[in-house]
């Protein structure tokens, strides 16, 4: 009797211990799984084709909002993402980096076609009309503000983070600008 009780308690402990051990390690980036915001994106890529987020199912997606007249944050981030793609090695074919312009007035398809591939040939740039882009930025909670500058060369203040989607197309992570590359690579692998 006593032996049976001990065995049962032991088995239960083993079960519970097993359950606790199964819980997945947290992401390094901010986990926003189940976020109610975001939604569909239907914009034109730098080849002139209409693209939606659905097109990228099967790949983890890194979504960044910027503009080509950005002197520092955007080229720094795009360069960083190119580095992340390199670090992924063969797994890079299961990553899609998407650059959405917050400045469609200047960032036309032609402009994006010269800008985006400079960082990586597989990156996709998206543009559209001002209302279309503003709608996507609003739904993804990306604040941006036009800052006039001399000679009409305006700049934008904007959110410098990025979003990561898993291969099933679900919005999963908010990627802060200072997240270490190695941590981002590890997180992205788990989304593939």
């Amino acid at each position, binding site marked *: 009797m006593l032996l049976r009780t001990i065995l049962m308690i032991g088995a239960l402990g083993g079960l519970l211990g097993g359950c606790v051990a199964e819980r997945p390690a947290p992401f390094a980036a901010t986990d926003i799984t189940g976020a109610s915001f975001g939604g569909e994106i239907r914009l034109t890529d730098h080849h002139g084709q209409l693209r939606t987020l659905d097109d990228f199912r099967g790949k983890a997606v890194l979504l960044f909002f910027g503009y*080509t007249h950005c002197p520092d*944050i955007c080229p720094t981030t795009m*360069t960083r993402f190119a580095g992340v793609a390199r670090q992924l090695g063969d797994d890079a074919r299961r990553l899609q980096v998407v650059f959405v312009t917050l400045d469609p007035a200047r960032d036309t398809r032609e402009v994006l076609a010269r800008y985006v591939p400079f960082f990586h040939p597989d990156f996709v740039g998206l543009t559209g009309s001002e209302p279309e882009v503003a709608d996507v930025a609003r739904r993804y909670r990306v*604040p941006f*503000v036009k800052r006039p500058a001399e000679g009409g060369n305006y700049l934008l*203040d*904007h959110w410098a983070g990025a979003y990561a989607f898993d291969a099933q197309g679900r919005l999963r992570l908010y990627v802060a600008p*200072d997240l270490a590359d190695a941590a981002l690579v590890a997180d992205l692998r788990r989304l593939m």
Partner: protein
Amino acid sequence: MQTRQLFAALLLSLLAPLAAAEAALRVEAPWARATAPGATNGAAYFRVVNAGAADRLLSARAGVSARVELHTHTMRDGMMQMHAVPAVEVPAGGRVDFAPGGLHVMFIGLGAPLTDGAVVPLTLEFERAGALRIDVPVRREAPAGSATPAQHRH
């Protein structure tokens, strides 16, 4: 005789601090990021190391763009706000990093893209040290040993 000695002493006393200030302040590890085709604005980064008295960086000059300004980024309202700064303090015996995401020299209205391997002559105007002319190599990525990006956990 006395006047000549006085004059020499005066000259020495004027020159000595100048010489000391120029030698004491150095600009290290400069680099500018190569720009994508069509990009009209660029940035240069470096580290200012000051072994001497406190100084201030007042302005920068370069021939590669219509305007050259000192800029920094501030995180506010969830956005990275970039704004020009009138001057950058360089504390005595201290150092200031110009790096991606933080302080930078901004090239506004580039005449041509900055290409990997090119060199941009840049003159930095300091209040005490005067004009420091440096050659800024253009690179796709930050070279090893350059000032590290600002870290702001938000």
